[in-house]
Protein backbone atom coordinates (compact mmCIF):
# COMPACT_ATOMS: atom_id res chain seq x y z
CA UNK A 1 0.00 0.00 0.00
CA UNK A 2 1.14 3.52 -0.78
CA UNK A 3 2.97 5.54 1.85
CA UNK A 4 1.51 8.78 0.59
CA UNK A 5 -1.78 9.17 2.46
CA UNK A 6 -2.88 12.42 0.82
CA UNK A 7 -2.57 11.04 -2.68
CA UNK A 8 -3.66 7.58 -1.63
CA UNK A 9 -6.98 8.92 -0.35
CA UNK A 10 -7.70 10.46 -3.74
CA UNK A 11 -6.99 7.37 -5.82
CA UNK A 12 -10.61 6.17 -5.62
CA UNK A 13 -12.18 9.33 -7.07
CA UNK A 14 -9.24 9.50 -9.48
CA UNK A 15 -10.02 6.16 -11.12
CA UNK A 16 -13.70 7.12 -11.13
CA UNK A 17 -12.83 10.33 -12.98
CA UNK A 18 -14.53 12.53 -10.40
CA UNK A 19 -11.64 14.70 -9.15
CA UNK A 20 -11.40 18.41 -9.83
CA UNK A 21 -8.98 19.13 -12.70
CA UNK A 22 -6.28 20.53 -10.41
CA UNK A 23 -6.54 17.50 -8.08
CA UNK A 24 -6.39 15.15 -11.03
CA UNK A 25 -3.23 16.83 -12.34
CA UNK A 26 -1.59 16.52 -8.94
CA UNK A 27 -2.41 12.81 -8.72
CA UNK A 28 -1.17 12.14 -12.24
CA UNK A 29 2.06 13.99 -11.52
CA UNK A 30 2.55 11.86 -8.40
CA UNK A 31 1.82 8.63 -10.22
CA UNK A 32 4.59 9.37 -12.73
CA UNK A 33 7.16 8.82 -10.01
CA UNK A 34 5.50 6.47 -7.52
CA UNK A 35 5.27 2.81 -8.48
CA UNK A 36 3.31 1.76 -5.39
CA UNK A 37 0.60 4.33 -6.01
CA UNK A 38 0.48 3.34 -9.70
CA UNK A 39 -0.03 -0.26 -8.69
CA UNK A 40 -2.77 0.62 -6.27
CA UNK A 41 -4.47 2.84 -8.85
CA UNK A 42 -4.49 -0.14 -11.19
CA UNK A 43 -6.12 -2.36 -8.59
CA UNK A 44 -8.71 0.25 -7.74
CA UNK A 45 -9.34 0.77 -11.44
CA UNK A 46 -10.26 -2.89 -11.77
CA UNK A 47 -12.74 -2.61 -8.91
CA UNK A 48 -14.15 0.53 -10.54
CA UNK A 49 -14.65 -1.22 -13.90
CA UNK A 50 -16.38 -4.20 -12.32
CA UNK A 51 -18.66 -1.99 -10.28
CA UNK A 52 -19.52 0.19 -13.27
CA UNK A 53 -20.38 -2.90 -15.29
CA UNK A 54 -22.57 -4.23 -12.50
CA UNK A 55 -24.38 -0.91 -12.26
CA UNK A 56 -25.05 -0.88 -16.00
CA UNK A 57 -26.39 -4.45 -15.83
CA UNK A 58 -28.75 -3.90 -12.92
CA UNK A 59 -32.30 -2.99 -13.73
CA UNK A 60 -35.20 -2.03 -11.53
CA UNK A 61 -37.88 -4.71 -11.71
CA UNK A 62 -41.50 -3.55 -11.69
CA UNK A 63 -42.59 -2.70 -8.15
CA UNK A 64 -45.31 -5.34 -8.07
CA UNK A 65 -43.05 -8.13 -9.33
CA UNK A 66 -41.79 -9.00 -5.85
CA UNK A 67 -45.32 -9.53 -4.56
CA UNK A 68 -46.22 -11.68 -7.55
CA UNK A 69 -43.05 -13.75 -7.40
CA UNK A 70 -43.12 -14.44 -3.68
CA UNK A 71 -46.88 -14.94 -3.57
CA UNK A 72 -46.69 -17.45 -6.40
CA UNK A 73 -43.94 -19.41 -4.66
CA UNK A 74 -45.58 -19.42 -1.24
CA UNK A 75 -49.06 -20.24 -2.46
CA UNK A 76 -47.69 -23.17 -4.37
CA UNK A 77 -46.07 -24.33 -1.18
CA UNK A 78 -49.32 -23.96 0.78
CA UNK A 79 -51.32 -25.87 -1.80
CA UNK A 80 -48.98 -28.82 -1.51
CA UNK A 81 -50.16 -29.26 2.06
CA UNK A 82 -53.70 -30.01 0.80
CA UNK A 83 -54.14 -33.78 0.43
CA UNK A 84 -54.21 -34.71 -3.23
CA UNK A 85 -57.43 -36.68 -2.83
CA UNK A 86 -59.23 -33.54 -1.58
CA UNK A 87 -58.17 -31.59 -4.65
CA UNK A 88 -59.17 -34.42 -6.96
CA UNK A 89 -62.62 -34.79 -5.42
CA UNK A 90 -63.21 -31.05 -5.59
CA UNK A 91 -62.12 -31.00 -9.20
CA UNK A 92 -64.35 -33.94 -10.10
CA UNK A 93 -67.39 -32.20 -8.62
CA UNK A 94 -66.80 -28.71 -9.96
CA UNK A 95 -65.29 -29.13 -13.43
CA UNK A 96 -67.90 -29.05 -16.26
CA UNK A 97 -66.41 -30.05 -19.62
CA UNK A 98 -67.17 -27.56 -22.39
CA UNK A 99 -66.77 -30.29 -24.99
CA UNK A 100 -69.13 -32.67 -23.25
CA UNK A 101 -66.48 -35.01 -21.86
CA UNK A 102 -65.03 -35.33 -18.39
CA UNK A 103 -61.26 -35.15 -18.12
CA UNK A 104 -59.62 -37.18 -15.48
CA UNK A 105 -55.96 -37.11 -14.55
CA UNK A 106 -54.11 -39.85 -16.35
CA UNK A 107 -50.38 -39.60 -16.06
CA UNK A 108 -49.78 -43.31 -15.54
CA UNK A 109 -47.55 -43.52 -18.57
CA UNK A 110 -45.45 -41.38 -20.84
CA UNK A 111 -42.28 -39.31 -20.42
CA UNK A 112 -42.24 -36.15 -18.29
CA UNK A 113 -41.23 -33.33 -20.63
CA UNK A 114 -41.79 -29.95 -19.06
CA UNK A 115 -43.46 -28.15 -16.20
CA UNK A 116 -44.44 -24.67 -15.16
CA UNK A 117 -45.32 -22.93 -11.93
CA UNK A 118 -48.17 -20.50 -12.50
CA UNK A 119 -48.16 -17.06 -10.92
CA UNK A 120 -51.27 -14.96 -10.33
CA UNK A 121 -52.14 -11.64 -11.93
CA UNK A 122 -54.09 -8.76 -10.45
CA UNK A 123 -57.32 -10.37 -11.67
CA UNK A 124 -56.79 -13.39 -9.44
CA UNK A 125 -54.29 -12.43 -6.72
CA UNK A 126 -55.10 -15.48 -4.63
CA UNK A 127 -54.61 -17.97 -7.45
CA UNK A 128 -51.76 -20.28 -8.30
CA UNK A 129 -51.11 -23.43 -10.22
CA UNK A 130 -48.85 -25.91 -11.91
CA UNK A 131 -48.69 -27.34 -15.39
CA UNK A 132 -46.91 -30.58 -16.20
CA UNK A 133 -46.40 -31.89 -19.69
CA UNK A 134 -45.94 -35.54 -20.54
CA UNK A 135 -45.30 -37.17 -23.87
CA UNK A 136 -47.25 -40.31 -24.69
CA UNK A 137 -46.07 -41.48 -28.05
CA UNK A 138 -47.21 -38.98 -30.65
CA UNK A 139 -49.38 -37.05 -28.22
CA UNK A 140 -48.67 -34.66 -25.40
CA UNK A 141 -50.75 -34.46 -22.26
CA UNK A 142 -50.85 -31.29 -20.20
CA UNK A 143 -52.00 -31.61 -16.62
CA UNK A 144 -53.22 -28.42 -15.04
CA UNK A 145 -53.63 -28.06 -11.28
CA UNK A 146 -54.86 -24.64 -10.24
CA UNK A 147 -56.40 -23.07 -7.17
CA UNK A 148 -57.79 -19.76 -6.05
CA UNK A 149 -59.51 -19.00 -9.37
CA UNK A 150 -62.76 -17.05 -9.20
CA UNK A 151 -65.73 -19.35 -9.85
CA UNK A 152 -67.01 -19.13 -13.41
CA UNK A 153 -69.93 -16.87 -14.03
CA UNK A 154 -72.69 -17.66 -16.47
CA UNK A 155 -71.33 -18.14 -20.02
CA UNK A 156 -67.77 -17.83 -18.76
CA UNK A 157 -64.97 -20.39 -18.89
CA UNK A 158 -61.19 -20.53 -18.56
CA UNK A 159 -58.74 -21.44 -21.29
CA UNK A 160 -55.18 -22.76 -21.06
CA UNK A 161 -52.77 -21.31 -23.62
CA UNK A 162 -49.30 -22.00 -24.92
CA UNK A 163 -47.69 -18.61 -25.42
CA UNK A 164 -44.76 -17.05 -27.19
CA UNK A 165 -44.70 -13.30 -27.52
CA UNK A 166 -47.97 -12.23 -29.08
CA UNK A 167 -48.72 -15.68 -30.41
CA UNK A 168 -50.70 -18.29 -28.52
CA UNK A 169 -52.18 -21.72 -29.11
CA UNK A 170 -55.05 -23.13 -27.08
CA UNK A 171 -54.41 -26.25 -25.04
CA UNK A 172 -58.04 -26.56 -23.94
CA UNK A 173 -60.72 -25.03 -21.77
CA UNK A 174 -62.38 -25.75 -18.45
CA UNK A 175 -64.64 -24.25 -15.82
CA UNK A 176 -64.18 -23.74 -12.10
CA UNK A 177 -66.78 -23.85 -9.36
CA UNK A 178 -66.96 -22.47 -5.87
CA UNK A 179 -63.84 -24.34 -4.74
CA UNK A 180 -61.75 -22.30 -7.14
CA UNK A 181 -59.74 -25.44 -7.88
CA UNK A 182 -59.20 -27.51 -10.99
CA UNK A 183 -57.19 -30.62 -11.72
CA UNK A 184 -57.51 -31.76 -15.32
CA UNK A 185 -55.50 -33.27 -18.14
CA UNK A 186 -55.73 -31.84 -21.63
CA UNK A 187 -54.28 -32.88 -24.97
CA UNK A 188 -51.73 -30.57 -26.53
CA UNK A 189 -50.13 -30.18 -29.94
CA UNK A 190 -46.95 -32.20 -30.40
CA UNK A 191 -44.85 -29.00 -30.54
CA UNK A 192 -46.29 -27.75 -27.24
CA UNK A 193 -43.05 -28.25 -25.32
CA UNK A 194 -41.31 -25.72 -27.53
CA UNK A 195 -43.39 -22.84 -26.25
CA UNK A 196 -41.72 -20.87 -23.48
CA UNK A 197 -44.82 -19.88 -21.50
CA UNK A 198 -48.28 -20.99 -20.51
CA UNK A 199 -51.19 -18.88 -19.35
CA UNK A 200 -54.82 -19.10 -18.27
CA UNK A 201 -57.37 -16.53 -19.42
CA UNK A 202 -61.02 -15.96 -18.62
CA UNK A 203 -63.15 -16.31 -21.74
CA UNK A 204 -66.78 -15.63 -22.59
CA UNK A 205 -69.09 -17.76 -24.75
CA UNK A 206 -70.57 -14.79 -26.55
CA UNK A 207 -67.22 -13.32 -27.57
CA UNK A 208 -65.40 -15.43 -30.20
CA UNK A 209 -62.18 -13.42 -29.87
CA UNK A 210 -59.44 -14.67 -27.56
CA UNK A 211 -59.56 -12.77 -24.28
CA UNK A 212 -56.79 -10.70 -22.73
CA UNK A 213 -58.12 -11.38 -19.24
CA UNK A 214 -54.99 -13.16 -18.01
CA UNK A 215 -55.45 -14.97 -14.72
CA UNK A 216 -52.32 -17.11 -14.38
CA UNK A 217 -49.01 -17.28 -16.22
CA UNK A 218 -45.72 -19.11 -16.01
CA UNK A 219 -42.63 -20.26 -17.85
CA UNK A 220 -42.32 -23.83 -19.13
CA UNK A 221 -39.12 -25.66 -18.20
CA UNK A 222 -37.85 -28.83 -19.76
CA UNK A 223 -37.38 -31.73 -17.36
Amino acid at each position, binding site marked *: MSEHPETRDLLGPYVMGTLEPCEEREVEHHLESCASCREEAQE*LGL*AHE*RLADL*ASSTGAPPEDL*KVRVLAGILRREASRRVPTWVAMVAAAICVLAVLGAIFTPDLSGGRAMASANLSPTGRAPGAGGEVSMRGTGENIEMRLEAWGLPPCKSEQYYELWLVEGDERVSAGSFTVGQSGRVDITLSAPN*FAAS*YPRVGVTAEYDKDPRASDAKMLW*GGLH*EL
Partner: protein
Amino acid sequence: MDRVDDEVLVQRVASGDERALSELYDRYAGLIYGSGMRYLGDRETAEELVQDVFTSVWKNASGFDSTRASFATWVYRITRNRATDLIRRRKARVRTVDGEPLFEPGETDPSGALSRNFDVAVALSRLTPLHREVLVLAYFHGFSQREISDRTATPLGTVKSRTTAALRALRETMRFDEDRWSADE
Protein backbone atom coordinates in the same frame (compact mmCIF):
# COMPACT_ATOMS: atom_id res chain seq x y z
CA MET B 1 -33.18 -7.72 9.03
CA ASP B 2 -29.53 -7.49 10.10
CA ARG B 3 -27.01 -7.78 7.31
CA VAL B 4 -26.21 -11.51 7.17
CA ASP B 5 -24.31 -13.49 4.58
CA ASP B 6 -26.20 -14.86 1.62
CA GLU B 7 -25.17 -18.37 2.60
CA VAL B 8 -26.86 -17.96 5.99
CA LEU B 9 -30.00 -16.68 4.32
CA VAL B 10 -30.13 -19.70 2.03
CA GLN B 11 -29.98 -21.96 5.07
CA ARG B 12 -32.94 -20.09 6.50
CA VAL B 13 -34.80 -20.40 3.21
CA ALA B 14 -34.23 -24.15 3.37
CA SER B 15 -36.03 -24.06 6.72
CA GLY B 16 -38.99 -22.26 5.14
CA ASP B 17 -38.04 -18.73 6.22
CA GLU B 18 -40.01 -16.44 3.93
CA ARG B 19 -38.27 -13.31 5.21
CA ALA B 20 -34.93 -14.76 4.19
CA LEU B 21 -36.27 -15.38 0.69
CA SER B 22 -37.56 -11.82 0.60
CA GLU B 23 -34.13 -10.51 1.62
CA LEU B 24 -32.42 -12.51 -1.11
CA TYR B 25 -34.94 -11.14 -3.58
CA ASP B 26 -34.07 -7.58 -2.53
CA ARG B 27 -30.36 -8.29 -3.01
CA TYR B 28 -30.42 -10.08 -6.34
CA ALA B 29 -33.66 -9.40 -8.23
CA GLY B 30 -32.27 -6.22 -9.78
CA LEU B 31 -29.25 -8.03 -11.18
CA ILE B 32 -31.30 -10.98 -12.44
CA TYR B 33 -33.91 -8.70 -14.01
CA GLY B 34 -31.24 -6.52 -15.61
CA SER B 35 -29.49 -9.61 -16.93
CA GLY B 36 -32.80 -10.84 -18.32
CA MET B 37 -33.36 -7.58 -20.15
CA ARG B 38 -29.83 -7.71 -21.56
CA TYR B 39 -29.84 -11.35 -22.68
CA LEU B 40 -33.51 -12.03 -23.34
CA GLY B 41 -34.53 -8.66 -24.66
CA ASP B 42 -38.02 -8.06 -23.30
CA ARG B 43 -39.60 -7.17 -19.99
CA GLU B 44 -42.03 -10.06 -19.76
CA THR B 45 -39.32 -12.66 -20.25
CA ALA B 46 -37.05 -10.86 -17.80
CA GLU B 47 -39.82 -11.01 -15.20
CA GLU B 48 -40.26 -14.67 -15.92
CA LEU B 49 -36.55 -15.20 -15.40
CA VAL B 50 -36.81 -13.58 -11.97
CA GLN B 51 -39.79 -15.80 -11.11
CA ASP B 52 -38.01 -18.94 -12.27
CA VAL B 53 -34.77 -18.21 -10.45
CA PHE B 54 -36.39 -17.53 -7.09
CA THR B 55 -38.71 -20.49 -7.45
CA SER B 56 -35.63 -22.61 -7.99
CA VAL B 57 -33.89 -21.03 -4.99
CA TRP B 58 -36.92 -21.83 -2.81
CA LYS B 59 -37.25 -25.41 -4.05
CA ASN B 60 -33.55 -26.28 -3.96
CA ALA B 61 -32.26 -24.31 -0.95
CA SER B 62 -31.88 -27.48 1.09
CA GLY B 63 -29.47 -28.84 -1.52
CA PHE B 64 -27.17 -25.80 -1.52
CA ASP B 65 -23.73 -26.63 -0.14
CA SER B 66 -21.81 -23.51 0.91
CA THR B 67 -18.55 -25.48 1.08
CA ARG B 68 -18.66 -26.18 -2.64
CA ALA B 69 -19.77 -22.85 -4.06
CA SER B 70 -20.74 -19.38 -3.01
CA PHE B 71 -24.35 -18.36 -3.19
CA ALA B 72 -23.46 -15.92 -5.96
CA THR B 73 -22.02 -18.76 -8.04
CA TRP B 74 -25.07 -20.90 -7.36
CA VAL B 75 -27.64 -18.27 -8.26
CA TYR B 76 -25.55 -17.27 -11.28
CA ARG B 77 -25.72 -20.82 -12.57
CA ILE B 78 -29.46 -20.97 -12.02
CA THR B 79 -29.89 -17.65 -13.82
CA ARG B 80 -27.68 -18.67 -16.70
CA ASN B 81 -29.39 -22.04 -17.10
CA ARG B 82 -32.88 -20.57 -17.00
CA ALA B 83 -31.96 -17.83 -19.46
CA THR B 84 -30.37 -20.40 -21.79
CA ASP B 85 -33.50 -22.53 -21.52
CA LEU B 86 -35.72 -19.60 -22.47
CA ILE B 87 -33.52 -18.70 -25.43
CA ARG B 88 -33.34 -22.31 -26.60
CA ARG B 89 -37.10 -22.71 -26.49
CA ARG B 90 -37.57 -19.64 -28.58
CA LYS B 91 -35.13 -20.87 -31.20
CA ALA B 92 -36.41 -24.45 -31.07
CA ARG B 93 -39.83 -23.32 -32.11
CA VAL B 94 -38.37 -21.43 -35.06
CA ARG B 95 -36.61 -24.61 -36.12
CA THR B 96 -39.83 -26.59 -35.89
CA VAL B 97 -41.47 -24.24 -38.32
CA ASP B 98 -38.63 -23.14 -40.58
CA GLY B 99 -35.92 -25.77 -40.17
CA GLU B 100 -33.28 -23.19 -39.24
CA PRO B 101 -30.27 -24.26 -37.13
CA LEU B 102 -30.70 -24.28 -33.39
CA PHE B 103 -29.13 -21.61 -31.23
CA GLU B 104 -26.38 -23.34 -29.30
CA PRO B 105 -27.04 -23.68 -25.56
CA GLY B 106 -24.38 -22.25 -23.28
CA GLU B 107 -23.83 -19.05 -25.24
CA THR B 108 -25.77 -16.92 -22.81
CA ASP B 109 -22.65 -15.73 -21.06
CA PRO B 110 -19.73 -16.23 -23.46
CA SER B 111 -17.60 -13.42 -22.02
CA GLY B 112 -18.27 -14.32 -18.38
CA ALA B 113 -19.70 -10.85 -17.74
CA LEU B 114 -22.80 -12.22 -16.05
CA SER B 115 -20.69 -14.37 -13.74
CA ARG B 116 -18.46 -11.42 -12.83
CA ASN B 117 -21.49 -9.26 -12.06
CA PHE B 118 -22.75 -11.77 -9.53
CA ASP B 119 -19.32 -11.92 -7.92
CA VAL B 120 -19.18 -8.14 -7.61
CA ALA B 121 -22.72 -8.03 -6.23
CA VAL B 122 -21.88 -10.41 -3.42
CA ALA B 123 -18.59 -8.60 -2.69
CA LEU B 124 -20.50 -5.33 -2.46
CA SER B 125 -22.96 -6.88 -0.03
CA ARG B 126 -20.10 -7.80 2.31
CA LEU B 127 -18.72 -4.28 2.71
CA THR B 128 -19.37 -2.22 5.80
CA PRO B 129 -22.50 -0.05 5.63
CA LEU B 130 -20.46 3.16 5.27
CA HIS B 131 -18.36 1.75 2.45
CA ARG B 132 -21.37 0.25 0.70
CA GLU B 133 -23.26 3.52 0.99
CA VAL B 134 -20.70 5.69 -0.82
CA LEU B 135 -20.35 3.17 -3.64
CA VAL B 136 -24.09 2.61 -4.09
CA LEU B 137 -24.77 6.34 -4.12
CA ALA B 138 -22.04 6.94 -6.69
CA TYR B 139 -22.51 3.97 -9.02
CA PHE B 140 -26.19 3.07 -8.75
CA HIS B 141 -27.72 6.47 -8.08
CA GLY B 142 -25.25 8.56 -10.08
CA PHE B 143 -24.44 11.09 -7.36
CA SER B 144 -21.24 13.13 -7.52
CA GLN B 145 -18.85 13.19 -4.56
CA ARG B 146 -20.16 16.62 -3.57
CA GLU B 147 -23.77 15.44 -3.77
CA ILE B 148 -22.92 12.45 -1.60
CA SER B 149 -21.25 14.83 0.86
CA ASP B 150 -24.42 16.94 1.05
CA ARG B 151 -26.81 13.98 1.28
CA THR B 152 -24.87 12.22 4.02
CA ALA B 153 -23.72 15.36 5.86
CA THR B 154 -20.13 14.17 5.51
CA PRO B 155 -17.19 16.44 4.69
CA LEU B 156 -16.17 16.20 1.04
CA GLY B 157 -12.65 15.13 1.91
CA THR B 158 -14.03 12.29 4.04
CA VAL B 159 -16.27 11.16 1.17
CA LYS B 160 -13.26 11.00 -1.15
CA SER B 161 -11.10 9.03 1.25
CA ARG B 162 -14.01 6.77 2.19
CA THR B 163 -14.66 6.09 -1.50
CA THR B 164 -11.05 5.07 -1.95
CA ALA B 165 -11.23 2.83 1.11
CA ALA B 166 -14.48 1.30 -0.17
CA LEU B 167 -13.03 0.47 -3.58
CA ARG B 168 -9.99 -0.99 -1.87
CA ALA B 169 -12.19 -3.15 0.38
CA LEU B 170 -14.24 -4.25 -2.60
CA ARG B 171 -11.11 -5.27 -4.46
CA GLU B 172 -9.84 -7.22 -1.45
CA THR B 173 -13.17 -8.99 -1.02
CA MET B 174 -13.29 -9.92 -4.69
CA ARG B 175 -9.73 -11.22 -4.52
CA PHE B 176 -10.58 -13.28 -1.40
CA ASP B 177 -13.61 -14.80 -3.13
CA GLU B 178 -11.59 -15.53 -6.27
CA ASP B 179 -9.01 -17.41 -4.18
CA ARG B 180 -11.68 -19.20 -2.16
CA TRP B 181 -13.72 -20.44 -5.08
CA SER B 182 -10.99 -20.75 -7.70
CA ALA B 183 -11.29 -24.55 -7.73
CA ASP B 184 -15.05 -24.46 -8.08
CA GLU B 185 -15.32 -23.66 -11.78
